[in-house]
């Protein structure tokens, strides 16, 4: 559990730094990719309901810090998405990056809907996000999430293989 928490915090930190880096490279980068949703989805897939909700909440708050909107909107949406993804991953066997990518894309769409609703209720702002950019954002986030998931699975597999080989060599040497 601690490892999961540390991984999540590292993920949030990386998403934060990556977001800042992308913003430095392109001010429009936040329109086409959402690194915090990637963290929320990956954390939710690997956590229980509480971890998913708390992780979604914290990641959302971190996104609020850089989004420039009202603080709490992404936290609210992240909490809901974390729980939905966690509940969905219980029904599905999530083993491939493509699946995680699809979940992340759906999560981005859900997040857009929730935030649009909150903005409409709280700020009385009826502006809806541009569908094209929402699609781009969902797709890009899904791709990133799938790649990160696959990479992490590969890294975990390699690490596990290295550990197994190391234990075997230690036994032979002994």
């Amino acid at each position: 559990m601690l490892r999961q928490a540390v991984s999540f915090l590292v993920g949030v930190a990386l998403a934060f730094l990556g977001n800042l880096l992308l913003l430095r490279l392109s001010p429009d980068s936040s329109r086409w990719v959402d690194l915090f949703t990637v963290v929320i989805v990956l954390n939710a897939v690997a956590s229980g309901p509480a971890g998913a909700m708390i992780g979604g909440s914290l990641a959302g708050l971190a996104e609020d810090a850089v989004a420039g909107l009202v603080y709490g909107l992404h936290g609210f949406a992240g909490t809901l998405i974390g729980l939905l993804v966690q509940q969905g991953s219980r029904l599905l066997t999530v083993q491939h990056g493509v699946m995680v990518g699809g979940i992340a894309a759906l999560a981005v769409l859900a997040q857009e809907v929730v935030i649009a609703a909150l903005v409409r209720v709280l700020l009385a702002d009826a502006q809806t996000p541009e569908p094209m950019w929402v699609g781009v954002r969902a797709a890009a986030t899904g791709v990133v999430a799938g790649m990160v998931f696959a990479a992490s699975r590969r890294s975990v597999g390699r690490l596990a293989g290295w550990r197994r080989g190391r234990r075997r060599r230690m036994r032979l040497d002994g």
Partner: protein
Amino acid sequence: MSGRAAWGLLVALLLGHLILAAVQVPDRRAEGSLLEGVSLRAIAPVARAIAGGRSLVRRVEVALADRRSLRAQNRRLEAEVETLRRQALAQQDLERELARLRSAVSYQPPAGQPVVLADVVFINHRSWLRTMIVHAGADAPAGVLAPNSPVVGYEGLVGRVLRSADGYARVQLLTDRAASVGAMIERTRRQGIARGAPDGGLVLDYLPLQSDVRPGDRVVTAGIDGIYPRGLAIGTVVSVRPGDELFHQIELSPAVDFGRLDQVFVLRPLEVPDELLEDDVETGG
């Protein structure tokens, strides 16, 4: 983690985020943030209820205080009303007196006749001696309340002073059967003697049968008796009948309503030298 705990955590997190967002969102219907606005709108009814309760208590306190105050005020006002009622009665008396005085001012006494106002303090209608007692005050001019001073009312002759003491005077009324006045018919200037009748009325004697006299004729003092000045109203002829001898039997209605007398005027008596008066002249009384 149980489902109920998960739901609790979800609600808490969502609520926390909503509150966090509401704190920052400006309220469109009021100053401050949305959270402040929502809080105020939620708290306002409670605050109003509490304020209403305090107001109610305050109103009850005020009502109790007012009740005490109103009792005291009521007692004070009742006393004041009583005082005012008395003052109103006194005022009415004053108004009546003022009316009488106005009438008095309009009264034109004979030239050179000083007048003293006197209150009627006692009047005797039942005795065969028809007299009344008047009070002119201790400061009445000397000589006015002397015997034989004429006494007149607003409407006409009342009588004469019989005697006086300390501002009081006994007055012989015109209707006393022992009273007599030199009189004349105003229309014809025919003179006679008006005197009290035994029944309390007034008759005019010594008018010859051939003289012209009619019911309704006004009778005034003739100024021939050495007591009464000329022209004071005595009464009105009510009936004229032929007498047994040479004179009419004339019944008069007095000009003065003796039942309503409350103030009279006393005139200074005519100062006819005694030596000029013959001993056998009947001057009345």
